[in-house]
């Protein structure tokens, strides 16, 4: 029957006489195929010697030849030193103590070098002040090997010799001597005794030299307030460990507030000890890292914060403060009551760029006699002077500046009135900029002096009074660069180097007979007898200021604050943990570092509250490929508009406020992939981070690279276990650290007691465990970058991160509560009843996906949990991943065939797949494709190839090295010797690593703690990483 069917090819067949039908019967195609067109000229084709067969022969031969040639091993050359330096042994790392002082980040650190190459930044544990390296400092070693660095001095875009530059400066300085025109040094904050001495000597030689210090992100208000109160231009220091109550008005002291570095002291007070821990109240507009760690957070716009601060002062002082609104009285009453109860154990801090607010806060702390408040030994690491800078710009424009020499600053990028500065620059006779990278300012000056990276420089820092630190080079200059101070010495006609100069300074006034070599080896030096002198100084300050005048100015400051009114939408500019002021914008590690709060990498954005987002009609949506999209807005401050800024809807953002971070939007001298975000400095009017702003929706959709799309915990209280201090102190741990139960033979037993597998004996030898205390972890992310550096983790770029192909071995999950508290989430989930209805789980879970408007926030670092009964190991078809006796889940990359079964079977989702070859691949133009960038790689760890899984190894290279060192010395390993990259980078003490078979070790003690729990305990993986229940201090006064 089938043969009866006729299939029609076209309707032309309906007409049997159609010529096409006839043609189709004869030929497959109606028209002749234009073979000639693509085979070319027939004559040449036939006359050619290479016919098809020959071609195939050639192909065959070359394939065979290539594969045969591949059998031949390559010849590897080995080139030893001609004269080996005494202290370098190939294969053995050397550590040097040095400091970073780039004007924004100040820290005392150790540098690990291999064969003379700095490869890793470590904390300097000898430093009592500034000893913790944040994420940017951890990443700064990669900026040394930035392929876009300047390789030599330049003039008008052409490379020149240093002699030419120096001669030009000297000539100009000579010709300006005695003239009315000024020579101005516009520099970063150095906080350096030697540089200060150097500049004052230069001033002594040239009367018309002026020094202006400029911080891109200014603390001018706080500096001026301190100066008004205590007579010295510095910042008060705070020891949060000594505080029982911390009240912060917008002070993001866990990241960069007043120079940062407060997290370790804070974290120490946050771990419950003897039933006590500090309480932290945060009043802020943006959801900051500090706010996310607070016990109680009030989302308030900056203007509201000022009113609250004024009223709080009144309440504490017992005076009545006027002002317009009473809507914040409830907050004021609560906070004031708590402060009164804590007394001298309370401390108030503020990050508001407002002189009045800063004055009031200093007055409050003084009034409280706060023990955490330290004015005896203030901080020097912010010196920027806005008044002087403004005067400089007007001087430049009126032609009163003869020479402008800049170091460590990029005003044409970071000034809100960059155009004005540029105009003035045109009127300056000689302009020189010391910079490591080609940037906006370098474009506009006459001479660009290629500056050293801090790892190539000498220097010294006085973090705070009496606390000194030395900076020493850990590598010879990679390029033809010079540090500013050496150049100044040259201009002054001095023969000595800056190194000699520092030694002279230290011998003169600092060391006081102590050993220079010891100070250099330690990296830090503390002048002990400073205390007494200091107190005297303070008194002098008070006398000078006069108790009365200060009192009067406080009263007027309070009045001013109380009368602040909101004038529309309020913008708060902030600096991100990853990018800071943008100095290291060309650092791929930092670009790929996900923001701890929004978990967005490679971008900055406007954060808006949900209510405002709805009013504006902007939203974030998650699209099918796993990426997050957001709408654009135009942001206008005082007539200056940034167009097309993407929006992130931020839970906890105060209604009526928006946030935008500094540090992005750099274009000049940057690789294309690094040109991310928008430049927020243009909105930084009068160096005030709080601005009145208007925003409007703009067309288009922005593609974010966000690594965490799901924002809430959905009531899964066993992932982050939380409790309150009250419950923690009063109830049995079974209540607040509940071990999940399973039914075995119809009896409820703890899930940990049931197992599919027989356990191995793990009591012999080392057994490594990592403890993570969720109370101490602030989410700062230093560990993420430390892991990056230690383990040669590749950077994959924005497009890949968007596809969830980020390679971070260690991520810090951030969760919001969808009710007011996480506890509320748990209760809501437990009360679900059926699918439908008011308590139905279908709608209920949908609701729980949305974070609350002022949610609780929790951070949880997650890396490979090194399960003793690992689900990944059992599914690997080639046994590429296996378990070691020391507890590490091992990954043999060379054995892996890339099935990714393990990644699918991992309940913690910590395994990463190399979708591409990330090294030597110009498609990934970050640092692993050029010789310079590759110098940062750790020679003890593999660089993985395409198609294999990789993951946290618990830094097996480090544990193995510790074991080997002990074996070689024939000794027992002490507690604390075992470290992973993350645990040694953790300055808050949240991560503790060690051997649990050593009963005396800290980690085994922590494992016995009743706060200890394992992640997803009920699935029985028996991880070697454990967490400590997060305790919140909700005890209100």
């Amino acid at each position: 029957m089938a043969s009866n069917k006729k299939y029609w090819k076209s309707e032309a067949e309906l007409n049997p006489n159609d010529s096409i039908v006839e043609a189709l019967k004869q030929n497959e195609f109606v028209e002749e195929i234009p073979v000639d067109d693509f085979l070319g000229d027939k004559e040449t084709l036939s006359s050619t010697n290479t016919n098809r067969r020959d071609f195939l022969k050639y192909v065959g031969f070359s394939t065979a030849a290539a594969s045969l040639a591949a059998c031949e091993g390559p010849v590897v050359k080995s080139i030893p030193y001609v004269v080996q330096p005494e202290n370098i042994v190939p294969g053995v790392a050397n550590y040097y103590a040095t400091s970073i002082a780039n004007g924004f980040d100040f820290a005392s650190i150790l540098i690990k070098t291999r064969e003379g190459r700095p490869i890793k930044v470590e904390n300097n544990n000898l430093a009592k002040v500034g000893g913790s390296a944040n994420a940017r400092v951890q990443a700064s070693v990669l900026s040394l090997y930035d392929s876009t660095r300047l390789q030599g001095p330049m003039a008008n875009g052409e490379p020149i010799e240093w002699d030419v530059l120096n001669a030009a400066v000297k000539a100009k300085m000579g010709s300006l001597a005695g003239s009315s025109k000024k020579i101005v040094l516009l520099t970063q904050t150095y906080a350096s005794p030697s540089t200060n001495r150097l500049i004052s000597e230069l001033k002594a030689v040239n009367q018309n030299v002026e020094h202006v210090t400029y911080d891109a992100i200014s603390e001018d208000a706080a500096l001026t307030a301190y100066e008004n109160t205590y007579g010295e231009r510095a910042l008060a220091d705070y020891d949060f460990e000594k505080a029982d109550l911390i009240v912060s008005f917008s002070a993001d002291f866990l990241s960069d507030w007043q120079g940062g570095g407060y997290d370790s002291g804070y974290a120490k007070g946050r771990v419950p000890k003897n039933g006590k821990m500090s309480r932290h109240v945060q009043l802020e507009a943006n959801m900051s890292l500090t706010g996310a760690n607070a016990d109680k957070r009030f989302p308030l716009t900056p203007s509201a914060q000022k009113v609250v601060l004024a009223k709080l002062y009144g309440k504490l002082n017992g005076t009545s403060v006027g002002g317009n609104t009473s809507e914040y009285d409830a907050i004021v009453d609560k906070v004031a009551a708590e402060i009164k109860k804590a007394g001298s154990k309370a401390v108030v801090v503020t990050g508001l760029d407002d002189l009045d607010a800063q004055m009031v806060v200093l007055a409050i702390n003084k009034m409280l006699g706060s023990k955490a408040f330290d004015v005896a030994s203030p901080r020097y690491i912010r010196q920027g002077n806005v008044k002087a800078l403004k005067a400089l710009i007007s001087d430049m424009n009126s032609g009163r500046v003869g020479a402008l020499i800049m170091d460590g600053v990029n005003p044409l990028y970071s000034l809100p009135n960059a155009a004005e500065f540029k105009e003035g620059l045109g009127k300056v006779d000689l302009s020189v900029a010391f910079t490591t990278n080609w940037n906006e300012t370098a474009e506009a000056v006459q001479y660009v002096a290629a500056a050293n990276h801090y790892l190539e420089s000498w220097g010294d820092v006085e973090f705070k009074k009496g606390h000194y630190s030395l900076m020493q080079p850990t590598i010879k200059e990679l390029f033809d660069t010079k540090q500013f101070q050496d150049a100044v010495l040259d201009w002054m006609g001095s023969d000595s180097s800056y190194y000699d100069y520092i030694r002279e300074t230290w011998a003169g006034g600092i060391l006081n007979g102590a050993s220079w070599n010891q100070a250099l080896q330690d990296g830090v030096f503390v002048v002990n007898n400073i205390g007494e002198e200091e107190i005297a100084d303070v008194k002098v300050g008070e006398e000078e200021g006069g108790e009365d005048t200060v009192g009067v100015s406080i009263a007027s400051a309070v009045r001013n604050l109380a009368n602040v009114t909101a004038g529309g939408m309020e913008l708060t500019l902030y600096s991100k943990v990853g990018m800071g002021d943008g100095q290291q914008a060309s650092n791929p590690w930092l670009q790929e570092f996900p923001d701890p709060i929004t978990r967005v990498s490679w971008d900055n954005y406007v954060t808006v509250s949900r209510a405002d987002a709805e009013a504006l009609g902007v939203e974030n949506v998650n699209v099918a490929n796993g990426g997050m999209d957001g709408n654009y807005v135009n942001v206008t401050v005082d007539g200056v508009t940034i167009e097309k800024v993407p929006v992130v809807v931020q839970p906890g953002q105060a209604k009526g406020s928006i946030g935008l971070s500094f540090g992005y939007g750099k274009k000049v001298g940057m690789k294309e992939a690094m040109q991310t975000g928008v430049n927020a400095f243009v909105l930084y009017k009068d160096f005030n981070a709080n601005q009145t702003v208007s925003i409007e929706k703009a067309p288009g959709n922005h593609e974010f690279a966000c690594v965490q799309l799901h924002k809430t915990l959905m009531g899964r209280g066993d992932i982050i276990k939380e409790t309150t201090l009250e419950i923690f102190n009063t109830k049995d741990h079974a209540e607040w650290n509940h071990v999940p139960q399973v039914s075995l033979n119809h009896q409820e037993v703890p899930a940990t007691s049931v197992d599919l597998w027989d356990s191995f004996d793990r009591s012999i030898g080392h057994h490594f465990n990592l403890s993570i205390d969720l109370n101490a972890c602030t989410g700062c992310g230093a560990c993420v970058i430390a892991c990056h550096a230690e383990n040669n983790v590749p950077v994959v770029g924005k497009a890949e991160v968007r596809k969830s192909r980020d390679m971070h071995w260690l991520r810090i999950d951030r969760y919001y509560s969808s009710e007011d508290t996480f506890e509320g989430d748990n209760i809501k989930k437990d009360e679900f009843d059926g699918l439908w209805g008011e308590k139905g789980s279908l709608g209920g879970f949908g609701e729980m996906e949305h974070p609350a408007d002022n949610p609780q926030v929790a951070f949880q670092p997650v890396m490979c949990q090194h399960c003793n009964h690992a689900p990944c190991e059992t599914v690997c078809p080639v046994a590429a991943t296996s378990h070691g006796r020391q507890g590490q889940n091992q990954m043999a990359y060379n054995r892996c065939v890339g099935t990714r079964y393990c990644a699918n079977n991992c309940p913690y989702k910590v395994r990463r797949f190399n979708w591409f070859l990330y090294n030597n691949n110009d498609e990934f133009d970050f640092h692993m494709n050029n010789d310079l960038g590759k110098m940062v790689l750790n020679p003890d760890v593999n660089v993985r190839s395409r198609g294999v899984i990789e993951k946290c190894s618990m830094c097996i290279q480090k544990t193995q090295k510790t074991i080997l060192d002990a074996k070689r010395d024939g000794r027992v390993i002490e507690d604390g010797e075992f470290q992973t990259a993350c645990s040694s980078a953790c300055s808050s003490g949240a991560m503790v690593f060690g051997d649990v078979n050593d009963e005396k070790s800290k980690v085994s003690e922590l494992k016995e703690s009743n706060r200890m729990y394992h992640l997803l305990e009920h699935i029985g993986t028996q991880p070697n990483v454990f967490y400590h229940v997060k305790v919140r201090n909700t005890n209100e006064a």
Partner: protein
Amino acid sequence: MAQDAVAESGDGAASGGDAAAGKALFNQNCAACHSLDRKMTGPALANVESRLAEDEGLDREWLYAWIKNSPGVIKSGDAYANKVYAEYNQAAMTPFPTLTNADIDNILAYTAAPPPAPAATAATDASASDASSGGSSGISNEVILGALVLIFALLVVMLFLVNTTLRRIAEANGISIEKENAEKRVPVWKAFAQNQFLVLVTVVLLLLGSAYFAYGWMMQVGVDQGYAPIQPIHYSHKIHAGDNKIECKYCHSSARVSKTSGIPSLNVCMNCHKSIYEYKGNPEGPSKEDLANGYTNEFYTNEIKKLYKAVGWDEENQKYTGETQPVEWVRVHNLPDFAYFNHSQHVSVAGVECQTCHGPVEEMEVMYQYSPLTMGWCVNCHRETNVKVEGNEYYEKIHAELSKKYGVENLTAAQMGGLECGKCHY
């Protein structure tokens, strides 16, 4: 031997010292900085006494004083002493207070002896005779072989002749045997081809055989056992570690503390080669194999010159010029990047002899890869080798516990966890 005889004959020529004893003392105390006929760290010492007496008017007493306490002589303001001191870059000569006057007499007797006759002529004589004798034995072998071949060829020819003669006789008699047989018989190969069982068995065997060889061939891809690349400087481990018995770790010092054994930097070579500027070889002269390979004394001396060029050593003025040319050695032992190997673990902790893995290096004229360096080779050793725990506090606890667990006296590296993937792959 010839030199010794000469030296002895010069005995007492001027001094009354024993030149033979003097030679021993000279080599022991002076040779690091002085040579007889050549300026080194210090001046050439041939006929030093007569030279000083003639040119400077200094007597043996001055020499006694100088050798026993040269800094003292310089300090005393002695003109010649200061001149020499200045001339030789102010390198102070080590004082030898322990040498007696008699010892110094002996040394001076040795220096006063005529410079040793160049050994080259003797050596070449010896080598020539060696070569001729070696050659004759070679020829005799070839003659025997040639004779055998000749006899064999003769036999073949004879067989052929006999065969043809017989065939002719048969033809003459009219007999033809071959054709009949040929018709009846099936050729062996045809019979084989028709037997399917045999064909199957053969094919299976052939396949198995070729698979075996293919596997064997593939498994040696990337295994460079015996790899002996030509190096930019012909460095003979045989001369250094074998003949002169220099301890391996004198040059490869980082093997004790580092993961790499380290190719010595050139300043390590110069520790000795500052004074060893030529290769004198065996007293008997180069062996015949050496000569066959071209390893004459001049050859080796020339290699030392290459070192000087690389390190920038000006022999004339005994100074570093600062113009260096780092030597690009060809790496012999190449472990893949994904395998972590630490020398100090094996050398310092386990006390493994270098030769265990690197073979008889002290016999290697040209360094070659002795071991396969495959994972199987590593693993086998870890299975068989006991961990050296004696006197190492680190191992005390773990050894006590583990040996109890496994019920053994000595633990192998494998039992200690030396077979875990992550111990070498990370």
